[in-house]
């Protein structure tokens, strides 16, 4: 076996799954949206100038001490409850000791054998089938700073001339959610992984505990994958693919690891236990740090913090604030909106559930909201390879466009052009209509003039109508619409034409 084999060769996914069953474990890190950091009062806003949101505590200066952010604990408990976990009556933070320049104290304040939430479960739906996912634990910890390596070709530390560290992120509260091993039919594994992360995103959003912006790193997924020969119960060696940061990538990375590991095993090689990097552009993983069981973080209870002992009253109070569970909510919405199963699946697969909810809340009929989000926006997101919420078009814009349609200022065709303008960043709907000259002509006299022109130009059609064939009037409407370059309400044209022709 050569190292290059471990990086390069793959087999077809169908061949891989014919021989092996994949076993997965997913670790998701969620950045909470608390106003201040986990152990100090520093703000947490994304995108501030480097090192502007730091203090002695999150810089790990000598003498500084942590104090637990109660809101962080509250969010952790809510997440635990939403994942049907038990909530610890008493738990502690622990120090995870290892050296890295972006970790100010050279230990991460985390939790070890006493997580705040444990033994939970959740469900995801893939192709109409429900899969139960067991949750091992959800624990509290702090984020590290962010290193930027300068001078290397790949942005990695290798080959860099120097590195810059921004500690703004250091100390931002994280919840790490760890599944137990997930074993589902091999051909569903990658889709289940994706559905799980997508479901977590919706759940965390609904809980209001995180911004869950994968593009900003507030939801990060590590995927553990191993293979075992079909029918065997012996687990294979697992790899951990780090920082797979979009739903689509989760699915692709899992698929890739299955095919890569199958190729390694088929050629008589051994899968190395290691961390692997996911490459979004090429769709492959490459070897990172070799990880052995000898990694020793020397965990011990954090002596600078007192145990966290959430009272049962508090836990029950928080439970009472939990929003509806996502599957229950989905069923309710489907009923309220009158969508078919197929329509609902399209909505969920298109990640358009939350935008549609928000749009409907603004008074837009569900069918119209679906039409715009799936027909225009999800399609555009898909074409540009972006997540839907990164498009820059939100429920407010959709509602505004729909309002113009309802008022008769736009028809669907023109509305599509408004969306085009919105996606191109041309301004507000009103500005786009103005610039592009898209408004429907609602002036009756202009329409009547056009009707007169159509009648004059098509005497044969008029004769047919007058001889008892009103359906022939369609050709006249077409002519008027053409004359108006589409910027007329067809129903209005029909009404005026009928009056004119006396039918």
């Amino acid at each position, binding site marked *: 076996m050569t190292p290059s084999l471990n990086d390069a060769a793959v087999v077809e996914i169908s061949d891989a799954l014919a021989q092996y069953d994949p076993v997965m474990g997913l670790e998701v890190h969620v950045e909470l949206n608390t106003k201040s950091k986990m152990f100090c009062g520093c703000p947490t806003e994304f995108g501030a100038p480097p090192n502007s949101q730091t203090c002695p505590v999150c810089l790990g*200066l000598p*003498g500084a*001490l942590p*104090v637990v952010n109660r809101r962080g604990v509250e969010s952790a408990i809510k997440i635990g409850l939403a994942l049907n976990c038990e909530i610890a009556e008493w738990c502690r933070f622990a120090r995870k000791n290892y*050296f890295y*320049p972006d970790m100010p104290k050279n230990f991460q304040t985390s939790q070890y054998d006493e997580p705040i939430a444990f033994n939970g479960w959740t469900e995801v739906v893939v192709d109409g089938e429900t899969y139960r996912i067991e949750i091992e634990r959800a624990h509290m910890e702090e984020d590290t700073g962010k290193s930027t390596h300068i001078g290397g070709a790949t942005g990695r530390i290798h080959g860099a001339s120097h590195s810059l560290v921004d500690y703004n992120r250091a100390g931002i509260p994280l919840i790490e959610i760890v599944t137990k091993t997930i074993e589902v039919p091999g051909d569903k594994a990658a889709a289940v992984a994706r559905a799980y992360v997508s479901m977590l995103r919706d759940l965390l959003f609904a809980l209001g505990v995180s911004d869950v912006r994968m593009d900003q790193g507030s939801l990060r997924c590590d995927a553990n994958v191993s293979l075992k020969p079909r029918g065997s119960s012996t687990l294979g060696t697992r790899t951990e693919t780090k920082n797979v940061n979009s739903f689509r990538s989760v699915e692709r990375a899992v698929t890739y690891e299955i095919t890569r590991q199958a190729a390694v095993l088929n050629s008589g090689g051994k899968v190395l236990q290691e961390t692997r990097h996911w490459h979004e552009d090429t769709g492959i993983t490459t070897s990172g740090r070799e990880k052995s069981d000898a990694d*020793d973080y020397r965990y*011990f209870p954090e*002596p*600078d913090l007192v145990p966290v002992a959430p009272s049962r009253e508090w836990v029950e109070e928080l439970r009472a604030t939990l929003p509806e569970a996502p599957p229950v909510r989905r069923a309710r919405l489907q009923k309220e909106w009158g969508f078919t199963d197929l329509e609902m699946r399209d909505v969920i697969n298109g990640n358009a559930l939350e935008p549609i909810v928000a749009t409907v809340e603004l008074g837009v009929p569900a069918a119209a909201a679906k039409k715009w989000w799936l027909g225009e926006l999800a399609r555009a997101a898909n074409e540009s390879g972006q997540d839907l919420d990164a498009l820059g078009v939100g429920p407010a814009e959709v509602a505004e466009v729909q309002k113009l349609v309802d008022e008769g200022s736009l028809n669907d065709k023109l509305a599509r052009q408004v969306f085009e303008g919105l996606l191109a960043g041309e301004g507000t709907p009103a500005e786009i209509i103005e610039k592009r000259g898209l408004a429907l002509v609602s002036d009756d006299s202009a329409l009547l003039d056009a009707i007169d022109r159509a009648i004059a130009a098509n005497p044969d059609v008029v004769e047919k109508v007058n001889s008892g064939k009103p359906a022939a009037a369609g050709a006249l409407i077409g002519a008027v619409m053409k004359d108006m370059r589409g910027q007329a309400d067809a129903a209005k044209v029909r009404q005026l034409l009928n009056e004119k022709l006396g039918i």
Partner: protein
Amino acid sequence: MSDLTRKTAAELAELMTSGQASSVEITQAHLDRIAAVDGDVHAFLHVDTEGALAQAKAVDEKRTAGQQLSPLAGVPLALKDVLTQEGVPTTAGSKILEGWKPPYDSTVVQRLKAAGIVILGKTNMDEFAMGSSTENSAYGTTHNPWDLARIPGGSGGGSSAAISAYEAPLAIGTDTGGSIRQPGAFTGTVGVKPTYGGTSRYGLIALASSLDTPGPCARTTLDAALLHEAIAGYDPMDSTSINQPVPAVVEAARNGDVAGLRIGVVKELGGEGYQPGVEARFHEAVELLTKLGAEVVEVSCPHFEYALPAYYLILPSEASSNLAKFDAMRYGLRVGDDGTNSAEKVTSLTREAGFGAEVKRRIILGTHALSSGYYDAYYGQAQKVRTLIARDFAKAYEQVDVLVSPATPTTAFAIGDRIDDPIAMYKNDLCTIPSNLAGNAAASFPCGLADEDGMPVGFHVMAPVMRDDLCYQVGAALESALAEQWGGVLMTKAPELEVTR
């Protein structure tokens, strides 16, 4: 008024209140004394002349303006170099922090400043408070003012030496295994380790987080109590801080009545290995307390014999993690940053050059004790011992109000005597360590001089959590009874230091 340095803090406060002396005069007198004797004693690592005089001036101005001031306003103090003071060099006795000026005040310093207490400078200590002699300081040994050839104790030898050399009437120490009390005993002064959580650790450069406790050093019980009151109390910046009122330590120090108080002599802290002169003074003190009406009984604390080994697992474990932050990345020493070395290499070179032998020894010990496969046998077992020691205390306090023992098995030893024998050095803290493991209050009070060497002996009082007042009560009773015999506190017997300037 050169005798200003001979006054107690309480007396100095009175002189200022009555307008007989200003804080600037008092501060200047102590700065002069430091200039005169510290060449021999080496209690200070940094003297903040300008800062101290500015603080003193500000207090005097407030007093002139008729503002209400706290009891110790204007009194000077020496600060152990392990507590951060904004803009003032803070090294913890280590080369790795040479030149570091903290951007923030520790809570203790905030409270000192708020009380108008004038900070003269930073005192010498064993590197990162690891040691019992100050010989582990990267900046030279402090000498015991009673005998300059001897160590002043440690780790807070600088603070205790400063007050016994009359360089300051008050000092702040920190006590992890005896670092306030043992130097107190060795220099004939009072040293108090408050209840863990009774004083804030915020801004205290951590040695062992679960043990470190800042506390007062002074020449009299009352002075220690006044300082204790100024720095103690709940601090929301320290999660392990206790949210309860400060025990009535000043009242106890003024009262000093032990009639009816039940005192337990710890059987395990005495006998073999204890210097005869130490035991003699200790037992005389116990007799004296009996005469004053205390009920004295012998109490057994069977697990105390395991305190030392447990301590030397817990402390290095926590220290190995606490000291990981010294990586040359953000502050302090940086070695090998010449463009050819990786960050990892720079960290390694810096730690090699910046840490002393004892610090390295304890980092290695602690790293090993926390390692996978050894954790249960070492750190885990030590925590169980800790629980058993706490139970010994709890059981003892069912029978008695306070426990007593010698503060140290011996008096101050000669410089160089034990530096090559870590175990002998560690045994210095045999009597003081149990209170750190249990987190209760404890203090050392002067009880005389050993016949063999004429060096001071400390009387150790241990009281339940948040009953620090009981320590002061016993200390005050002992102090006034002994003062009658000696014609003043023990410190009046100290030899005059030669003034070198």
